[in-house]
Structures are given as C-alpha cells and as structure tokens.
C-alpha cells in the first residue's frame, strides 16, 4: 500500500552496512527500531509480511448488519478450532481442502487477512496453537491490550520456591524502562499500590461496571483484587505522536485486537512512524529472514540473509549489529537455522539451550455467572472501554499453596455489550425468551484464567529435519507438554473462580477447568533464556548473546519464566533497556 514514508520503505540498500538490522516489526522490533534510531543509529527493519492497510481490515465501527456475512470470514477459508488442535497433529492445513487455513483467531473477516496461511507456514510435532501475523506491526495489530508489569515475585520466583532459575535482573532494573514505555505509548489503569502488581505511569483509567464494583468490594475482604483492565491504550492522548488518537470511549471494543483510531497500541503507529520521522529508519517488507550470516574471521554476526516473500529472490543485508525480534519462536528458529563453522549448533547456541525451557500461560479454566439483581436494570454503555477487569495473582503470594507452584490471574468482563450474552443462556423461545434476553443482557459476569506454565528443559522447539515452508526454509518441530503443575493449577483456577463469584452472590451458570491446547494464550516465551551463566543460558540480562557480542534477541525468547501477567509490556521494557545498551556498547566500540 501507499502511505506515509513511502521512500523509507523502498530504500533498502544491500551495499549499505547498517548500524543495526532488526528482524521483525512487532512489539519488540518496533521498540528497538524507535529507541535505536532516536539514539542516532541507522537501522534497517526486515519484516516478513506486507505493509497492509490495517484500518480497512479492522473497520472497528462497522455494525454487524453492514457486513454481508455479519463479520464472518469468507466461506472458503478454515479457521482451526480447539478440537482440531487437540485431536490432530501439525501440520494442520494438510487435513483441510480450503486453500486458506488460519489459526483459531481467524473466522472473523476483520482479522483473517492479518494472520498467516497455515498452508504456507507449517510446523510439526506436538499439538500447538501457534498464532502468527506476518505483516508490518506483527501481532500488535491484533493485540489484546492488557499491559501489565512483572514484579520480583516473578523475577525471583526460583529463590522463593526452588523451581527453575531466577531472572538475572530485578524489578528495580527494569522499572525505569516500564516507565519509558508507559509514557511513550500511554497506558490506562488504576494505581492500587500493590507490591506484586506494580503500578505504571497511568493515564485516565477505565471504570468498572456495577457488578464488578460489587465483586471488587467482596473480594477485597478476602484480600483479593478486582481492578480495571490495565490497557495499553492512550485514554488522554499523546502530544508526541500524531498517528494515534485518544480513546473515544465509543464502545464496541469487543472485536478485541485492533483499533482503527490507534488509541490501542500497535507497533506501526506507536513506534515505527515516530522512528521513521528521525530519517534514520529503512523498512524492508516482504523480507523473510532465514539466516544470521557470520563473518568467517571473527565469528560475529555480519548481517541477515532473507528471501523476498513474493519474488523469492534472496538478499543479504549487512549490519554492525543484529537484533532478532521476530517473535519468540521465529527468533529461536533463526538462531537454529544459522549454522556455520563457528556455530555448528546454530548461532548463539554453545550452551545447547536454544529451543529449550519454553514457557507460556495456560488457558481454559473459565466461569460465567449471572447477577440476578442486575436483571432489568437500565441499559448502560459498559463496553465503552478498552477492556473489562483483571484479578491479579493471589496464590503463592503471601502464603504457600501446597497443590502447585506459582499462580494465575483472571481477565474478566461484565455488563452490556453489542451482542447480548444472555442470548445463548435464556431458556425456551417466544416472548418469554425475548424478554429474558433483554432483561439479563447486562447481568453477566465472565472471566478466564491465565496461569504460569513452568519452564521445563524438555519443552520447546527444534528444526524439523524434513519439512520446509513455502520459501524452502526448515520449519519448527514442537515438543510441548503440560505437566502435573499445570493440571493442578487449572483445577484450582476453576474452584477459586467459583468461590469468588459465589462469595459475591453471583449465580454460576457454567465453569470449566479444561485446558485449551498449548499456545492458545499467544504468549510464547523462553527458548533462548537470559542468565548470568553462559553454560545454562543463551542471552545476558541485556538480551545480548553470550557467544556473539553483536547479536541480540529482544522478544519473548529471553524470558526465564512466564509469570502470570501478559508479557507484551515486559517484552517492550526489556527491548528498550537492551536497545539503549546496544547503542552505548556500539558507541564504545565494544561490539
């Protein structure tokens, strides 16, 4: 597409030696591109996908009846569902006749073209719901917006319970960078002054519905927290960014993921456009990276080899430093693909830990309740906000739970929305059904859990020895399995969800502890973890390869453990910190 900064999208020069090559343009790549260019570096971003007119895809204000299929994706596509992930093994597209098969996030006409075609991008191994969006801005185009900080409860988890390893950094090391991200992108939330859920530099907070305020008061007596969704959304506007509007509280934010006024953060308008304004940034779209090339004399990274996704011509981009930010598992795939005489097991992999210690958030446990006292209440504009509510971790915080390690949080929502939640709940048919749907439309409270999946050395990915993707690049083979800790945690999540709603007098309509397939949370983390010991970790605390000084991996791959909080804000704070370090080390001549 055409748009601002067209020249910078056509300026890639294979003869140039860039200060930094950033692979990926999502949350991590966007952060790196912005911070590095603002510090004066000449940066090349390689993006595997196209530059799409995302606003035309999202059509955030379109009414369902203005769409021929009421928002559904075209009939000749198939979006994978839960059963298909559970019962079949990847590559999933092989079982379907449709020319286009997407991850479970497809099925919506507003999202489907932002996702990869599984047919072109297969993988093998154990069942895994791998959601990928190859386009400028990456998965931030469909981001769920919850913007949370980790705390030392997470960074020093191993010291507390003896499992795994601590992070090689503390909250105080990263707090200033969370602040920078907050101020630059805007985050809305309510300061609760809780040590294990640190507050940010908050803009005007969204509010809670009546039912949520009642739940907040009830759970506070149990020492638990119901707080408004901490959203990576600018509710007051950003004077320094003309590409993003403030949140208009307009509602209909239920088509979560995507905001065509860009009040919700996305990398393109949040980071890349401001970075392009520096004049230091070149972006090459349709550039599928397949190898970090190596200087045969020094063993250092020399650049990145890529194939044009459309013409299939190959190129090598040269840079003084290389930043991988291709998403957790794609960055790991690139490390493994980059074999050379100096790095026979893949670049940065002398420890043998690349592809190991995968972690994420389990999903599945959920609850739906009905607050009878809300029946027939006057309609309110409850969905005029970026998200519902959040219940942060409460297990294994002040006291030890004997059934499992670590903890989980809940994301929830309640009140009126465009589609009445009561329509599949109300019994019978006819006038009574219609009245029940109307009366109870705003009376529902629902929430789903996100639980910390423990990193295990065995869990992770390797290269498949045979299968290649559309561009001839070896694909990933998964070996990811949940363990006893995850299963015990899931049971507790359902039990505690029931306890909490019942304590508030909210009638439980349905609940479940059944686990969704691995990967469902789209919070893939680990597989190139950071640490102080090069024998047991891949990166140092600045996301810098222990083996190759001018190579950095700035996405979720460096996570040591997952915490229970949604990771995007932490990924960006770490990338900001690491980018400042990269620029400083480059200036000093240390790279």
């Amino acid at each position, binding site marked *: 597409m055409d748009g601002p900064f067209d020249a910078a999208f056509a300026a890639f020069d294979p003869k140039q030696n860039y200060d930094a090559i950033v692979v990926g343009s999502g949350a991590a790549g966007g952060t790196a591109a912005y911070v590095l260019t603002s510090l004066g570096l000449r940066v090349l971003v390689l993006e595997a996908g196209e530059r799409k007119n995302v606003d*035309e895809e999202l*059509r955030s204000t*379109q*009414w*369902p*009846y*203005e*769409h*021929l*299929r*009421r928002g559904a994706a075209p*009939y000749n596509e*198939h979006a994978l569902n839960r059963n298909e992930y559970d019962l079949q093994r990847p590559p999933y597209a092989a079982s*379907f*006749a*449709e020319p286009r098969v997407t991850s479970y996030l497809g099925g919506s*006409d507003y999202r489907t073209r932002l996702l990869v075609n599984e047919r072109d991008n297969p993988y093998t191994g154990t069942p895994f719901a791998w959601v990928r969006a190859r386009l400028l801005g990456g998965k931030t185009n469909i981001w769920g917006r919850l913007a949370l900080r980790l705390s030392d409860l997470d960074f020093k988890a191993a010291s507390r319970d003896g499992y795994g390893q601590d992070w090689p950094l503390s909250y105080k090391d990263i707090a200033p960078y969370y602040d920078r991200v907050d101020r630059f992108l805007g985050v809305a939330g*309510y300061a*609760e*002054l*809780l*040590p294990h859920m640190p507050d940010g530099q908050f803009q*005007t*907070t969204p*509010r*809670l*519905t*009546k039912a949520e*305020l009642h739940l*907040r008061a009830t759970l*506070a007596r149990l*020492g638990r*927290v119901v*707080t*408004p969704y901490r959203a990576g959304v600018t509710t007051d506007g950003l004077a320094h960014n003309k590409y993003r509007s403030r949140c*208009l*509280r*307009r*509602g*209909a934010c239920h088509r979560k993921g995507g905001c065509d006024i860009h009040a919700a953060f996305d990398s393109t308008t949040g980071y890349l456009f401001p970075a392009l304004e520096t004049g230091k940034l070149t972006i090459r779209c349709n550039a599928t990276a397949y190898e970090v090339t190596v200087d045969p004399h020094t063993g250092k990274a020399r650049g990145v080899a890529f194939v044009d996704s459309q013409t299939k011509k190959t190129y090598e981009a040269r840079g003084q430093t290389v930043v991988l930010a291709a998403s957790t598992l794609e960055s790991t795939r690139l490390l493994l693909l980059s074999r050379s005489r100096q790095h026979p097991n893949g670049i940065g992999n002398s420890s043998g830990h690349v592809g190991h210690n995968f972690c994420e958030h389990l999903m599945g446990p959920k609850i739906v309740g009905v607050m009878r006292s809300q029946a027939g209440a006057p*309609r*309110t*504009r*409850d*969905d*005029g906000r970026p998200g519902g509510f959040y219940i942060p971790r409460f297990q294994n915080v002040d006291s030890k739970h004997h059934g499992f390690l670590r903890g989980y949080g809940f994301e929830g929502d309640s009140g*009126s*929305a*465009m*589609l*009445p939640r009561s*329509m*599949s709940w109300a019994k019978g*048919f*006819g*006038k009574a059904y*219609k*009245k029940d*749907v*109307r009366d109870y439309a705003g009376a529902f409270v629902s929430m789903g859990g996100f639980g910390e999946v423990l990193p295990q050395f065995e869990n992770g990915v390797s290269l498949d020895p045979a299968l290649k993707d559309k561009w001839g690049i070896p694909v990933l083979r998964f070996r990811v399995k949940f363990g006893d800790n995850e299963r015990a945690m899931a049971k507790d999540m359902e039990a505690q969800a029931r306890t909490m709603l019942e304590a508030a007098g909210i009638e439980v309509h349905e609940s479940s502890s059944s686990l969704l397939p691995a990967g469902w949370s789209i919070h893939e983390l680990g597989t190139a973890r950071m640490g102080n010991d090069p024998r047991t970790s891949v990166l140092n605390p600045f996301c810098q390869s222990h083996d190759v000084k001018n190579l950095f991996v700035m996405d979720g791959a460096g996570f040591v453990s997952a915490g229970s909080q949604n990771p995007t804000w932490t990924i960006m704070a770490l990338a900001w910190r690491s980018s400042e370090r990269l620029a400083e080390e480059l200036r000093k001549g240390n790279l």
Partner: protein
Amino acid sequence: MSSKSIRPLRRDLGAVALVAAGLPLVRIRKLHAAEAPTAGARAGFFSPHQLLTVEHLAEQIIPQDEHSPGAREAEAAQTIDLYLLDLNPRNSDHVKRRALWKRGLVHIDKDANARFAKPFVKLKADDQYALLSTWADTPTTDPLRSAFFAELKARVAWAYYTSAVGIHQDMGYLGNTYSSDFEGEALGPPLGILFKQMKDEAP
C-alpha cells in the same frame, strides 16, 4: 403469510460492506451459481416455501411484542438463507448443517400435516407455537428434532441480535459512538491501602 412477506435479501448494505472490504461482489454469486437451487427468480439456499417456513419459525422464536419488532421484521430468515448458501460445500460440518436444515424443514411440515392436516406456514400462530414447543421439549433421543430446534434457535438469535432491529430497537444498545468519559462510578481507595489497614487491624 402472504407472498409479500418474502422480501428480497437486503443486498444493498452487504454490497457496501463488500466493496469497502475490497471483495468482488460478483464472485460470491458466481461461486454458488452451480450448486444453488433454482427457486424462481432468486437463487438462495431455501426454496420459496422453505424460506417462508423459516420466516414463520423465526418469528415464533423471537416474536414481535409490545417492546420491539420480531425476527420477521429483522429479516432473520433471509440472513440465515444467505448464511447457509455461503457455507463451504467441501467442509463436512457445513454439509451436515445444511442437511439438518433441509431435513428439519421437511419434518416440521410432516408434524404439522399429521396434527393439523396443513403445512406449518398455514397454521394459526398459537398452533405453530404449540407444535414448536413439542420440538423444544424433545429429548435428545430424537436427534433430528432436538438438534434442529437447537440450531434454529441459535441461528435465529444470531441473525436477530446482529440486525439493526435487534441491536437498536430491541436491545437499545448504547455503544459504538463516542463519549467524553467512561461509564461507571469512582473506584474508591487503592486496595493496597485497604489491605495495609486490614493487616494493621488484625490481632
């Protein structure tokens, strides 16, 4: 139940959406031309009689009341007709869903004829309600009737509550507009302060 109540599908809005989405409108029609039944002038999934039957069934599921129009006014039957037409003939779940509708519609007329000696669309509204009640209460041992009723109800609800009538007239939905501030009341003191007080007061 006059033939007047079969309205042409409201293609104008859909066409706007398709053009906005950059989708070729012609393509969708062409793709289905081969497999669509030739029912008079319009090429839908249902025959005119089936469409009329669905319209009556839908109005029974969500009838007009003193508050708002029902499924007929919301053109739920036409929305379902297009939905079924647009399903994927190569997807076995979709093929089964289409078959369920066709079989269900045959059987509802069979039941109507057995009890009232008339097809469903010729019954008085009260008789339609009575007949449909027997389907609604069918145990799952009668898979066709229970499955068809569940599918009918879910699909009519979807068509109705995504329609302009459902969203605006019935539900009185207030969102998808702008506002100066978030709805709701203030939150009270930060919970961290409350928890500290609770700790201090504990014996």
